[in-house]
């Protein structure tokens, strides 16, 4: 159903702009340089320099040591409203002591991160040591306090079953997560529609139980406009239209933005665009 051509013209344009405003524009590579981070920050502020109608993205997501570079560039270039998210807590494996994870988080916040993407200890989760997972999230949440939003990465590709995904979602929400996020992007499969559906249902049920709205962030494997629109439809149908805003739904992606921009150009000009007409990612 989600793959057919049901969304057209004005609705599609709305969906594209909504998706752009929800992107956490991400670069998480060992080969990242300050130059690359600056270039994605510039793109975050003005995704299509030839068209000022295109909204800015939801956030920029980088490794801890690049937070300062990103924050400084955004502040000096008209991107003050764009938050910087840092992947902390020994991302992507999470294999470090809690002291190191706390210090990592402290460091990111001190450098200007206002969103922390932490990973859970999947080894502990899978071996049934749920209290360790819970305690770690609580510890990191304490450090974040009011200074930073906490996104908890479940790494669903390693959780094996959908039951586990739901269990981990509730665990994270109960421990104080502001967002639950599917994946690091380093493990396949990542943000499959089925996994996102399970998480959205968990968020919806948690809201009905407690009245608290928790955000969802699928990340990894969302590369095309069609993928992104599928996600938006899932959000609308499962959690509800209130979740269709960047405060409660984000998409972690890098290549997706160019595809959205090319589709947007196609809708404006009537002709298919190409990679030569968008910036490198």
């Amino acid at each position, binding site marked *: 159903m989600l793959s057919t*051509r049901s969304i057209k013209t004005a609705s599609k344009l709305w969906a594209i702009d909504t998706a752009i405003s929800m992107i956490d524009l991400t670069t998480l590579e060992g080969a990242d340089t300050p130059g690359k981070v600056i270039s994605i920050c510039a793109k975050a502020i003005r995704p299509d320099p030839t068209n000022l109608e295109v909204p800015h993205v939801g956030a920029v997501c980088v490794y801890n040591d690049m937070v300062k570079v990103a924050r400084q560039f955004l502040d000096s270039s008209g991107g003050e409203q764009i938050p910087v998210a840092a992947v902390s807590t020994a991302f992507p494996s999470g294999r470090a002591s809690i002291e190191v994870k706390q210090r990592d988080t402290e460091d990111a916040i001190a450098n200007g991160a206002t969103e922390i993407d932490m990973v859970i200890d999947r080894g502990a989760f899978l071996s049934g040591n749920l209290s360790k997972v819970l305690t770690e999230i609580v510890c990191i949440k304490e450090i974040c306090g009011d200074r930073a939003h906490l996104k908890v990465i479940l790494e669903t590709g390693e959780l094996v079953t959908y039951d586990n995904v739901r269990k981990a979602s509730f665990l994270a929400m109960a421990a104080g997560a502001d967002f639950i996020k599917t994946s690091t992007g380093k493990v396949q499969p990542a943000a499959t529609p089925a996994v996102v559906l399970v998480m959205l249902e968990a968020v919806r049920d948690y809201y009905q139980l407690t009245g608290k709205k928790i955000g969802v962030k699928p990340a990894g494997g969302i590369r095309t406009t069609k993928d992104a629109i599928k996600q938006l439809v899932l959000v609308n149908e499962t959690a509800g239209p209130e979740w269709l805003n960047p405060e409660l739904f984000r998409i972690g992606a890098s290549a997706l933005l160019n595809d959205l921009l090319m589709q947007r150009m196609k809708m404006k000009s*009537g*002709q*298919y*665009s*190409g*990679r*030569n*007409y968008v910036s490198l990612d």
Partner: protein
Amino acid sequence: MRIDVKKTYKLFIGGEFPRSESGRSYEVYDAKGNFLANPALASRKDLRDAVVSSRGAAEKWEKTSAFNRSQILYRVAEVMQGRAEQFVSEIIAQEGLTKSQAKKQVEKAIDLWVWYSGWCDKIATIYGATNPVSGSFYNFTIPEPLGVVGVFAGGKDSLLDLVHGIAPVLAGGNVAITLANQNFPLSAITLSEVFATSDLPAGVVNVLTGKHSELASWVASHMDIDGIDGSGLDSQVYESVRLAGTDNLKRIKKFSSTQSPERILAFMESKTVWHPIGI
């Protein structure tokens, strides 16, 4: 009694054989006017998917060494040889030729692959140049591939004209999006099965069956297609393609069916390098 197994004719995109995303097909008839097949009727979205796949393959194919490209094109000829009888029977059905005429066409088409295979690692040697310049530079020019080329197959020889279009594009290191001859699509479909089993990387050739008049303007205006071989288009559609293709300075050509290195060079760019010496 045994029930015949009928073939579903599909598109060839990214090394796979999908149906048209539109779900459409159209009817083709044999030379006597009897129903022959229901090939897929490609939509502009199938074209868009094909371009994405071609663009991905272009980088890989361009980097493949000329010698290796040559081996792969020769492999296409080898695999075609094994399928010669299928090509012959399809040509007889589509074009109403005699068996010996059809056989001759298939053999010419196979030989054409061998011929263009030989050109892969010679085109730069023969059409490149060292240029005498005033200054301490070693100055040389080499032809490099353009990128993604749309090939409209037409003509009366369904297989031979198709190979006349595709082979030179591949020999120059470009990738081809082929719009099959709309009246005689079976040769293109069988040829795509040959490509799928010839070491040709996925996406280097994509084959769409459908109506040229429906897809031509989309091919022409697509900003990610670099060139068009419009030999198979009638002159009115060809002119409209030339107009619609101006926006990205698309290279749009039409050839008579002759085998020539000019057809390879038509979709190549000359790069000139000034290399400092003696400093």
